[in-house]
């Protein structure tokens, strides 16, 4: 079970991180558009389409990664006061009640939606450049599948937590500055007053 959780965490993280680098492309591409518009006086026809395709792909593909690292916002002012095993019980029920139906709908109907788009090689209507969007619509399906796999891992996490009363955290290699600083501070306090 723990093996599968680790596998799903790694899978989600791999996809999330790989597509996260699109931000660099996005900054460079949009910067390029500004440059050619003002300096060379010849704006591109594709910049707008490309920027939202990059943005949409980026955040959709990061959905599962964010879930595995507990990054989706919760209304947790009561939740945080509960014992981990009680948190896990509630979560477990809600994963089945809310998460899987929604994500399954995303995969199934996303598939139909993307398939239709592939069939006639759909291109964006925003510009005459004819930027293809069928691959972009496929992102919905892929994001859904990744979420589904991560969801199974989250359910296992809940079961694990109900047994041990302790959340099995995903391996983490990047931290928000505030979390890092607070952790360091807590560590230093512990050393100062053992």
């Amino acid at each position: 079970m723990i093996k599968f959780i680790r596998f799903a965490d790694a899978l989600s993280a791999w996809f999330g991180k790989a597509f996260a680098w699109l931000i660099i492309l996005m900054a460079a591409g949009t910067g390029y558009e500004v440059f050619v518009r003002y300096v060379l006086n010849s704006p591109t026809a594709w910049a707008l389409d490309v920027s939202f395709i990059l943005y949409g792909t980026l955040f959709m593909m990061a959905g599962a990664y964010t879930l595995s690292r507990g990054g989706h916002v919760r209304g947790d002012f009561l939740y945080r006061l509960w014992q981990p095993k009680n948190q896990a019980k509630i979560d477990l029920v809600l994963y089945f009640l809310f998460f899987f139906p929604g994500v399954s709908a995303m995969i199934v109907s996303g598939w139909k939606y993307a398939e239709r788009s592939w069939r006639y090689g759909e291109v964006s209507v925003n510009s005459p450049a004819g930027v293809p969007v069928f691959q972009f619509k496929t992102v919905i399906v892929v994001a859904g599948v990744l979420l589904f796999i991560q969801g199974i891992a989250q359910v296992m996490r809940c079961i694990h937590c109900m047994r041990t009363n302790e959340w099995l955290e995903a391996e983490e290699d990047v931290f928000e500055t505030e979390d890092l600083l607070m952790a360091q501070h807590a560590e230093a306090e512990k050393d100062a007053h053992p």
Partner: protein
Amino acid sequence: MTDPQVALLMLGLFIVMVFLGFPIAFTLMAMGIGFGYYAYFDERRQWRAFNRLEEDAGWWDSASTYAEGLLNNRIFDLFINQTYTVMSNEVLTAVPLFLFMGYIVERANIVDRLFSTLNIASKNVPGSMGVAALITCALFATATGIVGAVVTLMGLLALPAMLKARYDKSFASGIICAGGTLGILIPPSIMLIVYAAASNVSIVRLYAAALLPGFTLVGLYLVYVTGRSILQPSAAPRPSEDEVPDVPGIKLLFMILTSFLPLAFLILAVLGSILFGLATPTEAASIGALGGIVLAIAYRAMKWQRLRESVYLTARTTAMVCWLFVGSYTFSSVFSYLGGEHVISEFVQGLDMSPIMFLLMAQVIIFLLGWPLEWSEIIIIFVPIFLPLLPLFEIDPLFFGILVALNLQTSFLTPPMAMSAYYLKGIAPPEVKLTQIFAGCMPFLICVFISMALMYIFPNIVFYLPNLMYGS
């Protein structure tokens, strides 16, 4: 049950579900689909294929056709369409770029230079360290827009310095908490982009409108800090010579040139190009991100690990905000299809309120929501409930948005979920108590309320710039 009653049930049930602490994006998605299935249910669609089956069709064919019929509901198309709308939203494309700029600037080793420079520059002002801390917070928060980072970095830098100079503990904490929170208000802020995406108000006008109110609030904060320092010098003693050294004018000038100016220039370049119509917010944000990288390289802070962190954290935070939109777009279109919006607006009309009463009620509700919830949930989920009501009272959504943005400053400062205070407590020395931090935030809360009242009495603070630049 009639449809509008179902809509109200949907909203009520959702609020209960939020309190269970499940990731809200998925709660919204599932409830949108669930209630949408009911709303768009069409018996003919369900049985159409099944009735066409041959008499002697096998059990597998019948079962699968039946299942397909069950899934033949327009809600599924609506859900995917709404998802795609979020994915191709032109306004939201600026979100990851501004976040990226923020994460880069946050890691550029800039804040300590900025604070020590301003500390020396403001030496002769009453409450000089407090003023320096506040301005550093405001500037740094404007450039990064990430409240937690500003509060913790400044909490490690400015709080010990102020405590050493025998500042009052809660006074010093309040300055940092309130100053760090300004990043979500002063443009280019991400909160305003999110409001623009939720309300269809032009983001450019919103930025122009938020400038003067933002400065008004900073001004009020400064008045409070210097005023209290004058009236109660023991709360903010003058720092001694070795705490803040005297430096010759030419060296100070050099310090300002290398710390204050580049960051201010970056902010002005980004904001200016948006306000003067030279670039869309997305383009300006990408310039800001590239500029942030240049800045980080110039400060020799550009390391591979920091770039990776910025890239990954950008993806996570963008996913957090935008998946919330995916859920709420579906949820709210089902809600209004069921007639929920209509029934609420009828109810509010029946209350026979004057515009000022309505405005007060809305702001009080948003203020109260800010206690347990964070700004992203409030703007994406709850503010859209008020938006259709604004025309009834002839309130401009632009004006409403600015009031909300001011109001949500408080959501970081009020318990039980005062994020700013918790961040500060997380890194403060143990003798600084959480209650002292809250007490220190209170006067700043009052400043926020005063600024909101000022906006109401002099709406021109909001409208002057947008009308001047883009006509009314």
